[in-house]
């Protein structure tokens, strides 16, 4: 079972990322959970959202404390929130940033795998807005292989309708542009 | 002729939800004994507007053949609403006589 924690801010659509990923996994015949951090959501305030993906039924319903994957949608959260908290030593940290993996590793004191991508730039160019929730899905898929890129098509189309094409394009770009680096 | 039971004898005889399927069964409860006063109509003042008929909470006021109004005293509770609402003052509440 793979556990993922997403960091974003209220209004940035982290809950949508979680939903898209869960739906795509289920679309593949897997089992998945997608859930927000329970409680009120305030625009702009840091928040987390979660996924579990598994090949068979998921029984655990408690919070996620030791994720295998952490995704950071907003570069401004680094330093504000301890995004690497509880992340498994062998886990993967996927960050929307213009910094290098080495810099991120130093700031967070995280020695595991780090993937970086300038998702804000991609989102601005492809979607005309710095909303990185779908873009970062591309980076997550490339860095982890947790689902297939194609499996997102149906949920993204269902969710974004006319804008689905642009979102798919943005996330494909992130898929191609993400830089993987193993610090060790 | 069998006399009707006031209540079902056993709990198993109750209607589901205590529903009463007999229409107008409240007729058996003669509320006329509750009144300390009763309304008396003075048809000379009555303009046949029907307000007393509409306002009577017991729905015991009905129209007579001549188009005036009268209460069925078996059910009239003596509340005086009809007298209060009758603006030409055609209804007067009178004490019940001993």
């Amino acid at each position: 079972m793979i556990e993922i924690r997403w960091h974003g801010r209220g209004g940035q659509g982290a809950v949508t990322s979680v939903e898209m990923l869960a739906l795509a996994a289920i679309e593949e015949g897997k089992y998945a959970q997608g859930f927000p951090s329970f409680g009120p959501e305030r625009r702009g305030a840091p928040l987390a959202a979660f996924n579990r993906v598994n090949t068979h039924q998921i029984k655990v319903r408690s919070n996620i404390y030791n994720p295998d994957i952490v995704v950071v949608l907003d570069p401004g959260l680094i330093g504000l929130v301890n995004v690497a908290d509880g992340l498994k030593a062998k886990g993967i940290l996927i960050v929307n940033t213009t910094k290098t993996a080495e810099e991120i590793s130093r700031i967070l004191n995280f020695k595991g795998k780090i993937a970086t991508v300038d998702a804000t730039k991609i989102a601005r160019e492809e979607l005309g807005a710095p909303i990185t929730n779908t873009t970062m899905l591309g980076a997550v898929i490339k860095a982890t292989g947790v689902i297939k890129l194609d499996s997102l098509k149906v949920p993204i189309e269902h969710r974004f309708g006319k804008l689905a094409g642009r979102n798919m394009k943005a996330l494909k770009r992130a898929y191609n542009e993400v830089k993987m680096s193993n610090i060790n | 002729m069998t006399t009707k039971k006031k209540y079902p004898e056993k709990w198993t005889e109750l209607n589901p939800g205590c529903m009463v399927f007999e229409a107008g069964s409240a007729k058996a409860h003669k509320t006329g004994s509750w009144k300390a006063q009763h309304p008396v109509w003075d048809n000379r003042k009555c303009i046949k507007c029907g307000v007393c008929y509409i306002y009577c909470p017991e729905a015991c006021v009905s129209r007579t053949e001549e188009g005036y109004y009268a209460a069925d005293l078996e059910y009239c509770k003596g509340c005086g609403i009809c007298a209060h609402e009758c603006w030409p003052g055609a209804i007067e509440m009178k004490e019940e006589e001993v």
Partner: protein
Amino acid sequence: MAKRVGMEVAIAAAEAVALCRIDVAAVYPITPNTHIAEHLAEIVADGKLDAEYITVESEHSSISACCGASGAGARAYTATSSQGLMLMHEILPIVSAMRLPVVMGLANRAVSGPLNIWNDHSDIMPQRDSGWISFFAENGQEAVDMSIQSFRIAEDPEVMLPIVLNIDGFQLTHMIEALELPSQKEVDRYLPPFRPLATLHPDKPVSMGAYAFPDIFTEVMKVKDSVLIDSKKTILKAWDEWGKQFGRWYKPVETYKADGAEVLIMTMGSMGETASIAVDELRAKGVPAGLVKLRLWRPFPFEEFREAIKGAKVLIVCDRAVSFGGPGGPVAAEVKSALYNDAGRPAVLNFLIGLGGRDVTVENFKDILEKGVQAINKKPAGGYIFYGVRE
């Protein structure tokens, strides 16, 4: 054919209710309500369901409107949560006394105060004696299945009682997960149209909700109690037929590795699955642990419960509500009274856990089960424990 989908559980519950072709939904559509209310509104507004969606000014009104609608012969549904249910409290026993088969989806959340919107069972427990059938869903699939079963059971001529389906708030309602949504055809096959005992219609007058004097009130209470107890027969039948049609089987008390277990842990709602992982881990280490899940809360399934815990030395009851100044959690109190006359009864340990959204982990359940193991062959301590309280 049923289709496997990924869906938020609250939305799936609303879809299931729509498949039941309800006539009326009366809901107070803002906090503390969930997506159940919101999504039902969407379904009706989109013209996918020919129903009256009444947005009322309070939950007291939503349940009252359901009462009237059901009396008029409509299949009526409402959804609420925590304080909303508290506001309905006054009307709940009236709905059951009038034998109106209203169905309610309850997203269980803590009751104030202090203000807290998270998951526990403190909203449903004070409604225990309202005369409603009450059951708990453990996951999204069960929330869907039981929403549909609820109408069939409630509207059975032998039952004609309202049902509250407990769906844990957040832990279930806000969870996107995989589940099977039955097709309209399948639901139509399982759920016949609603045939009310009587309807409020001028052509066939009937009085509903009549006064009961002291000389009849005891008899009425006896009827209420008996009908609720007897509803178990219909519930079992409806679950059996569900199993035959859909291949998913439901029991009043579910067990997991309970055979030969010396220590049993008992849960309700969404905690059962997490607890089952702890049981697996302890069993792997050779600890005779097992799990009992109470699905049917009212009518309380005494027989099935006794059968499920037979042979256990320690029974750990996990309560998600507090009976302040009382005998412990409300479930443990009932369990103890159910066992009082049984000679071979197990020791009962009572933990109050998962209050107001406090997370309960597999580790917590393992810890609790180990405490149960330590209690084997010891004189039961009695009382109750606020699990994890900071001291």
